[in-house]
């Protein structure tokens, strides 16, 4: 049997009587750029919330590299290799750009509380290693020059980039991007397409993304799953799925 990076088995969640997501079975291979699309309210972000531990699935399970992560806490899931960005940007707005990334890098340093508080050699060693890595990461996104500004002072497009940088800082195996192109102009979307492809190769990660912008979807995704009213409407190769009459009907109506 083939080993998938992420496998969801009949994943579902209901809020009271509302079945927000039902019987979702995704199989994402390592190194894939996978898209999750669907009309508003289809349950895409709910899937992300389940995969990151914000919601506990009521049915089914999901596995990362064969390891069952269902029901684990968000912080633990992140440490095990799933990182995400948010649809409505959630940066640490009163912290500097570099501090945002350093927070993401926090778990990769073994510096103890005691070492930090008393400035022992372990602190200096880990701190300079973290800063070096943070700046290299910021450089990838062209944010190194603004590393000392407050995150909330960045323009919108850069805030989105910073969110991706911060998520990458946690060294994920799977990166979940929730509408990364929302609010971007076509030029920025084009840049983002290149960036996503670039980071996939550079950091050797798998990307699952939610997106409404079809330019980005067709430009980036290898395969797609379409959700509608919490159920899978179609899945497969990007071009096949986008020409599926059912999908067109769901988006445009009869």
């Amino acid at each position, binding site marked *: 049997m083939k080993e998938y990076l992420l496998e969801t088995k009949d994943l579902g969640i209901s809020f009271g009587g509302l079945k927000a997501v039902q019987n979702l079975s995704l199989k994402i291979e390592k190194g894939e750029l996978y898209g999750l699309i669907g009309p508003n309210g289809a349950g895409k972000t709910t899937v992300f919330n389940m995969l990151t531990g*914000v919601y506990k699935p009521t049915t089914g399970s999901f596995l990362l590299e064969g390891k069952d992560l269902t029901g684990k806490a968000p912080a633990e899931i*992140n*440490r095990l290799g799933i990182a995400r960005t948010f649809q409505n940007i959630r940066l640490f707005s009163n912290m500097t750009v570099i501090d945002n990334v350093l927070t993401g890098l926090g778990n990769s340093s073994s510096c103890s509380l005691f070492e930090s508080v008393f400035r022992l050699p372990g602190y200096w060693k880990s701190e300079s290693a973290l*800063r070096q890595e943070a*700046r290299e990461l910021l450089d990838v996104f062209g944010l190194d020059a603004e590393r000392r500004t407050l995150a909330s*002072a960045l323009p919108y497009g850069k805030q989105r980039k910073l969110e991706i940088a911060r998520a990458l800082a946690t060294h994920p195996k799977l990166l979940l991007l929730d509408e990364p192109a929302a609010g971007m102009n076509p030029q920025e979307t084009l840049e983002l397409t290149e960036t996503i492809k670039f980071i996939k190769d550079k950091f050797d990660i798998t990307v699952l993304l939610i997106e409404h912008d079809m330019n980005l979807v067709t430009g980036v995704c290898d395969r797609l799953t379409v959700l509608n009213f919490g159920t899978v409407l179609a899945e497969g190769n990007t071009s096949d799925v986008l020409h599926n009459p059912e999908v067109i009907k769901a988006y445009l109506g009869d």
Partner: protein
Amino acid sequence: MAIKTSVKPKIKNCTNYFIVGAFFLVFLIIDLASGGLRNSSSILLTKIAYSIILAVSLNIVVGFLGELSLGHAGFMCVGAYIGCFFENILADIIPSKILLIIAAMIIGGLAAALSGIVIGIPTLRLKGDYLAIATLAFGEIVRTIFKNQAVFGGALGLTTHRYGKSLWIIAFAVVFICLFITQNLMLSKQGRAIKAIRDNEIAARAMGVNVTYYKMVAFVISAFFAGIAGVIYGNLISPVSNTFFDFNYSIEILVMVVLGGMGNITGSILAATVLTFVNVKLTTQLSGDLAALKNLIYALILIVIVVYNNAPALRGLREKLDFFKFVTGLKEKLFKKKPGDSEPPSTASWDKIPTKIDMDALLSTDVTPDKSFEADKSASRRKE
């Protein structure tokens, strides 16, 4: 990528050490030159010192973690009673006065930290107002427990050792330790996690921050220093009475933090110093019927500070008297830095977190079309 970065082992943010150090040195010189400070001055200085410790430590929870705690006097109470109780016991074993108070401070601090863990486990799941109510209840419960224990002197209070005049020097030494630990904590991985929880708890969780653990770290370190402040208080005033550690005192510490600015350590130091000074002076100067005026004047001062900090009409004045600009200007003058050499001033150095949107600047932006632009247009039209 040719990025080279290094974190040089230097003491960052020496502003606070400088302020406290200068303050301390001035009085130390007066002390040595005049053959000893007056008793009242030494009491005032001790009070200022433990107020600074309380304000800075509460700032860890309120300013950096972003949770409202109204039980800080409760932790101080635990430290004062437990620390001084063991001080009385240890007095026979440890002959040295200094060693005795150090032992008492460690015991008092640890007892307060332990009570912080005990109270933190159930209450740190709560947020906002609920945490405030729970910590408020904790403060009152602790006070009542000590009041009803005969070992701790009951309602009369615990008779403690008075350290004597030089207590203020010890108290300021503790201020330095408190500043050292707090500042180091906030500039480390752990401090960033704590600030991340304040800014966005959901995102912090998603970035792998163990929220419960870091909330506990902040809470316990804050309680530890409150306990030490309690021991200093116990060595200043005997008997230690439970009525001192009431709800009003927790609020008073909170007022220092809020006036100094949330997450602003320099502010906490200044606010604690000024408010304690005003409070002590008003209490000692106003006697008889005038004593009733104390709260009135105190309130007036608070209102003036709040208005000065927030009123849009005073913007110009504030900018003119900006303390941080003054400090950076002083630094540049002292170290002969050319303005071009220095890196762009970090708007986000952690002792300067903007807490309010500058609506004024937003509203005063001129959006009428530029005259020169109009002139340009008409010129080009004429050409055509």
